[in-house]
């Protein structure tokens, strides 16, 4: 499965040419990242006005990429992309090392949302949304997880009922990133309760800014309010905004999961993201920043931790490339994307844990003058979010053992029975 048009004409531009063009653009237009003092969702609470400002900046950068023919490197030309190869995208990514990039528009907008649209949308649906996304005009989110659902996204309780040319949606979704500053949503809903769970789902898309959608922001333990919960009450969606067939939404859902895992693994050709081995927001360089701030650059124990983190990061990029190539070349099933998702957690765990370990007591108590050690305790405490959001690591391990290695499936009590009869708790 791939969001990339395999039939694209031979690339007019070489990888090196694109890289050179990207380098020139970046140096002329983008701001280099500062050293130390990384403030991100994990370490600190970003005030709303700053958050809005960075979303606005991300839209600007995306528009500049569009204007300079650097947006949608792997997206087919008919939908506004360049129709080039993953290697071209990688050349752009590598040039971005150390520079700002349109962080807020990558995941979930480019993938899984746009990737799902490219795989399953109609020609008209793609024409309407893909160029808008590539210009930075539409930011998308996923209406996927539900409060009761945990790892079982196919167990969606959000219900869509047909009413003429429209559908009426009711239910609640959760863990969408930044719903309050996003434009469109991709939503998995139940359209049939009388069949087993995978056979009664349908996918819809709709604008978020509607009276029938109430957005509540979820406060994470570190005070961050990036994630939201949404409540849909009699939300009407035209049938033309349905993606895929009625009750066949799990076909779309499987592709959706695939792209989500690839995105979590930073292994999606439609995503623009600098390599993690480099410096930058989650690059290994931040470990050196932390050790320097802790005055431990010469401490063998600190160096051991830096070496561990750098190893983890350095292995990440080639692994994701190997998985991508293995899937594209038919050496691996699509499901192997879960390996990348699991490894993505290894990298982030190292990046969120090691600075805390380097910080000593400053990891528990800090102030504004602590530079790269600011908020390392928050980052450490919230780190499991990365092992949960975007599909838990437990689900990834299930998928790897069952779908990649072919081991027997876990016993389940929801596969053969109508969804309304599935046990949902100790008393049911």
């Amino acid at each position, binding site marked *: 499965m791939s969001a990339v048009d395999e039939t694209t004409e031979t690339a007019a531009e070489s990888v090196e040419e694109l890289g050179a063009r990207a380098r020139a653009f970046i140096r002329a237009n983008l701001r280099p990242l500062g050293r130390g003092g990384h403030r991100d969702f994990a370490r600190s609470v970003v005030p709303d006005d700053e958050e809005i400002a960075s979303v606005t900046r991300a839209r600007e950068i995306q528009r500049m990429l569009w204007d300079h023919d650097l947006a949608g490197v792997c997206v087919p030309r008919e939908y506004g992309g360049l129709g080039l190869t993953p290697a071209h995208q990688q050349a752009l990514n590598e040039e971005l090392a150390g520079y700002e990039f349109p962080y807020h528009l990558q995941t979930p907008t480019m993938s899984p949302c746009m990737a799902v649209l490219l795989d399953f949308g109609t020609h008209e649906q793609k024409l309407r949304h893909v160029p808008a996304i590539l210009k930075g005009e539409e930011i998308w989110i996923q209406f996927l*997880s539900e409060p009761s659902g*945990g*790892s*079982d996204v196919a*167990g969606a309780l959000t219900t869509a009922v047909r009413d003429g040319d429209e559908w009426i949606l009711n239910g609640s979704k*959760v*863990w969408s990133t930044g719903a309050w500053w996003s434009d469109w949503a991709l939503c998995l809903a139940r359209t049939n309760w009388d069949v087993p769970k995978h056979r009664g789902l349908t996918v819809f898309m709709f604008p978020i800014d509607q009276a029938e959608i109430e957005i509540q922001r*979820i*406060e*994470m*333990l570190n*005070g961050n309010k990036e994630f939201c919960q949404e409540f849909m009450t009699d939300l009407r969606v035209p049938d033309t905004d349905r993606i895929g067939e009625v009750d066949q939404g799990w076909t779309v859902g499987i592709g959706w999961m695939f792209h989500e895992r690839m995105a979590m693994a930073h292994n999606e050709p439609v995503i623009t993201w600098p390599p993690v081995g480099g410096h930058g927001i989650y690059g290994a360089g931040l470990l050196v920043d932390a050790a320097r*701030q*802790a*005055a431990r650059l010469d401490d063998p*124990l600190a160096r051991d931790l830096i070496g561990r983190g750098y190893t983890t990061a350095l292995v990440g990029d080639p692994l994701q490339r190997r998985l991508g190539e293995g899937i594209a070349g038919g050496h691996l099933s699509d499901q192997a994307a879960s390996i990348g998702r699991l490894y993505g957690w290894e990298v982030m765990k190292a990046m969120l844990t090691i600075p805390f*370990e380097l910080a*000593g*007591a*400053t*990891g*528990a*108590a*800090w*102030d504004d003058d602590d530079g790269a050690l600011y*908020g390392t*305790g*928050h980052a*450490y*405490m*919230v*780190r*499991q*979010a990365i*092992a*949960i*959001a975007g599909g*838990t*690591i*437990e689900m990834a*391990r299930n998928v790897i053992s069952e779908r990649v290695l072919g081991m027997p499936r*876990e*016993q*389940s*009590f*929801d596969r053969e029975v109508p969804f309304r009869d*599935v*046990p*949902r*708790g*100790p008393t049911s």
Partner: protein
Amino acid sequence: MRWELTSDQQFFRETTARFLEDQVPVATLRALRDDPLGAPPDYWRRGAELGWTSLLVGERLGGGSISDAGLVDLTLVAHEFGRHAAPGPLTTANVAVAALAAAGDAHAAAVAAVVAGESVVSWAYGEPIPHDGFGTVTLEVRDDGDSVVVAGVKRPVEAATQADAFLVTGRSGDGLTQVLVPADAVGVAITPLTTVDLTRRCGTVSFADVRLPASAVVGEMGGAAEQVEHQVRLASVLCAAETTGAMQRAFEMTVEWAFERYSFGRPLASYQALKHRFADMKMWLEASHAASDAAADAVAEGAVDAAARASAAKAYTGDQGSELAHECVQLHGGIGVTFEHDLHLFLRRITLNRSLYGTPADHRQRLAALLIAREEAA
């Protein structure tokens, strides 16, 4: 916590538990998030009436213990503090008052005020980067005839903005000296730090040539090394006991969740991959109980292996407490990382205790030195 308590200990523990449930339920803890003191009014004084600050003080100075070993009794309080993520400077205030009491009658008035809960004295030990190596003391205490002069910076200091005075550990040439410094002395500056815990606060305290009468010295000028070593052991034991209580609570919440939460039509508790992780957690939890109880006994008795047992308990609960808390978050899924859920209260407490008074890595260096010394002597 140990299996068998005397009926007096049991009553003592339950009194504190009931008080905490009543005074600082989780809703109150959340409400205290931005409170400068991080505790309800009169909370600490009433806790002191229950005995929270008197157990390491001899009877002559107004203290007393439930059993023979006040430190063991105090770990029962610490355990309940962990179970309830309770506010209050339990570790730092007790370590400080133990040091004041150990100096004989010289600081009897200060001891009495602490025991009564009318005053908080906090131990100011750690120093800022680059002097934050565990055990490093660069703050200077100068003998100047009838007075002493204190110069340097301490960080993090627990309850910095709440304390009435600080027991400051400093250096005088080759020796260590401890000084009781009022928080309002001229030259003392206190700035708060953002702290991982919801109610326990830390700050930076700087001493700009603070001049005090010589009577402010606690113990002998330059002769505090042994006492400071004892304080490290006390703090380690109390952190370990409190962390074990927090682990116990987080684990119980997560076991309960595993039975109630269904996924794919089955309770989480029925998935073997999770069951095996619960088994490991149960092992860490029981080992933490055992390690912190053994450390309390050893330090209380002054056993030859007291230093090693205290550091082993601190290192083990620090590492395994963090692992357990992260596993509990993971097993809860998304709800586990929200502020709305209670789990983070315990994760915070475990994280704070892990970081204060020596990280697990710091205590491993201590343990290695102790073992090498033992083997070289054997």
